[in-house]
């Protein structure tokens, strides 16, 4: 062993256990731990005290302090006196400092982690129940906020509503344009492969028009908005929650539901139908572009066929869906934001949950629409 490396010699005398420390007791040198000392104390006959000889130490850092701390804990457990006189001055002070505050009794926390299966199932069930109650309470408060809004009593800033409107409307146009156009193109290609085998390319217009207006327009707009806006709502409100901004609103007597959630739901409910209408038209343009350039249709043919295929009722179905989807996205985003508590990591969780919940809700709602419209025969 090189002379500079940290070394530990344990000498057992009748009156004391002497620990001879030498060399460089630095973390980088990987000095011995307190384990050997603990073993020496546990084995052999009991000694009344532990003393140190550190004259051979040429340098030290936290490594020595951690070692001494370990020895101190071991001697304290066994009621053995620790004679710190032989230690370097600084190390002795550090030892006093580390032992100044006794370890916290966090037994409650550890106990909670070691529980049986039944307890865990029970706790999970209770948690689900609480979550359900929380969601229902949120829906109820939102409904009350709407009543207040309709009665002109809701407290919120009009400028906030305008800002959110701008954010969820015009600023979303580029991404909606891109996605909808491509969806139109894809639908046209899928239809064309089948239809052109029968020389029925003209029906591409029907396919693209109906699919965009009834299904894909509202659906794609909703999915874009849940990723873009739902997540943003959740992140924004949960950050406010973490920074106690929401608490500040509450203590002023302003309902965070009215102040934060209401404008966001309103904005999405207003903007989603408009975005959907826009997505419909861009999608139809996408289908038209493919049909004209690759499948030999003319603009007039495509235009007329689309007009024949679509009725106002079809548009209405899509727009009603859009309103419902908009409300679902805003509710999911705001709910996840409002129920956040804790820290920065909770903000990420809220944003993720907002998107997942919104997309699931959208697809489920779309399924219900399909069943209901089928039953109604439209």
């Amino acid at each position, binding site marked *: 062993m090189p002379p500079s490396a940290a070394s530990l010699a344990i000498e057992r005398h009748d009156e004391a256990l002497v620990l001879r420390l030498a060399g460089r007791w630095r*973390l*980088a040198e*990987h000095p011995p*731990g307190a384990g050997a000392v603990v073993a020496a104390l546990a084995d052999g006959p009991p000694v009344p005290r532990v003393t140190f000889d550190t004259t051979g130490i040429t340098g030290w*850092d*936290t490594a020595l*302090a*951690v070692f001494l*701390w*370990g020895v101190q804990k071991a001697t304290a457990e066994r009621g053995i006196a620790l004679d710190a006189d032989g230690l370097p*001055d*600084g*190390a002795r*002070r*550090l030892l006093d*400092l*580390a*032992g*100044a*505050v*006794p*370890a*916290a*009794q*966090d037994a409650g*926390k*550890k106990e909670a982690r070691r529980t049986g299966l039944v307890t865990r199932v029970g706790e999970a069930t209770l948690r689900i129940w609480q979550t359900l109650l929380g969601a229902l309470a949120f829906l109820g408060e939102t409904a009350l906020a709407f009543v207040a809004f309709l009665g002109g009593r809701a407290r919120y800033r009009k400028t906030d509503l305008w800002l959110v409107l701008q954010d969820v409307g015009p600023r979303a146009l580029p991404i909606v344009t891109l996605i909808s156009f491509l969806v139109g193109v894809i639908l046209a290609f899928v239809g064309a492969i089948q239809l052109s085998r029968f020389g029925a390319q003209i029906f591409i217009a029907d396919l693209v028009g109906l699919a965009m207006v009834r299904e894909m327009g509202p659906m794609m707009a909703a999915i874009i908005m849940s990723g873009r806006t739902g997540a943003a709502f959740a992140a924004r409100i949960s950050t406010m929650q973490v920074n106690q901004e929401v608490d500040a609103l509450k203590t002023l007597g302003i309902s965070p539901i009215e102040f934060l959630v209401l404008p966001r739901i309103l904005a999405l409910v207003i903007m989603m139908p408009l975005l959907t209408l826009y997505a419909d038209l861009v999608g139809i343009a996408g289908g038209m572009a493919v049909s004209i350039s690759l499948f030999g249709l003319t603009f007039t043919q495509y235009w007329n066929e689309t007009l024949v295929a679509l009725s106002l009722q079809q548009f209405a179905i899509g727009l009603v869906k859009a309103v419902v989807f908009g409300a679902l996205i805003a509710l999911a985003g705001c709910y996840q934001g409002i129920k956040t508590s*804790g*820290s*920065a*990591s909770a903000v990420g969780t809220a944003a993720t949950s907002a998107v997942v919940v919104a997309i699931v809700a959208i697809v489920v709602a779309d399924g219900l629409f399909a069943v209901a419209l089928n039953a109604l025969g439209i």
Partner: protein
Amino acid sequence: MPSASDDSERCPGCWLASTAASDDDQLSVHGLKMAYGDFVVMRDLEFAIKRGDIFIIMGGSGCGKSTLMRHMIGLKRPAQGRVLIDGQSLWEAQRAEREDLLRRVGVMYQGGALWSSLTLAENIALPLEQFTDLSSATIREVAAYKLALVGLAGFEDYYPAEISGGMQKRAGVARAMALDPEILFFDEPSAGLDPVSARRLDDLILELRDSLGTTMVVITHELASLLRIGTNAVFLDVETRTQIAQGPPQALLEQCRHPRVQAFLTRGAAGETAD
């Protein structure tokens, strides 16, 4: 050195410390100008911090104390001037050298700035895992020890959100000490703490300086605290946008005749009569 025009603003009696470089300097600032775009926060800053000093950066609210700290811990590039750590220029160094220099520095941020997704032990373990080759058992032990040093033994598995603000600050100190830094920065250590906890944190700073020999840089406007622990200080003045006094806080209180320094150090009592 500061330009001559500023000398009239200064109290000659309170220019108590020499600004000349010496081998004892652990950290020094030369002709530092701090700015956000065109807005100059402070200019002509010139001071040196000696090994084992508890150096106070003081001044009224909004005078740029925290900005000065950001320049000294590598978060903000000076508009002009140099920051030397152990004689090496922080901002003229290559990226790798700068990171090496910064590893000699530990920082306790105002709110603790603990990583919220990690437990207290993990917060301290992270720098050790990244920059040392210690085994995970040793790291765990070192983390537990550092927490014990700041009086948080037994809280290893708690998340920052589960403990009080004062405890978060102390955990922040423990994390700052993870790599055994030579210089420790404290941003407003007593802000938001009750007087007893604040004094205990002061004691901790003194105790750590005495036992480890760590140089401490403390940003504070807590009078009781800075007069008690400070061995040297610089006073930043928001009106002239530069430092107007330098020296041990107690000596500044007794000897400095500058009205704004006196007002600060006497809680405005002297300022009312002087102005």
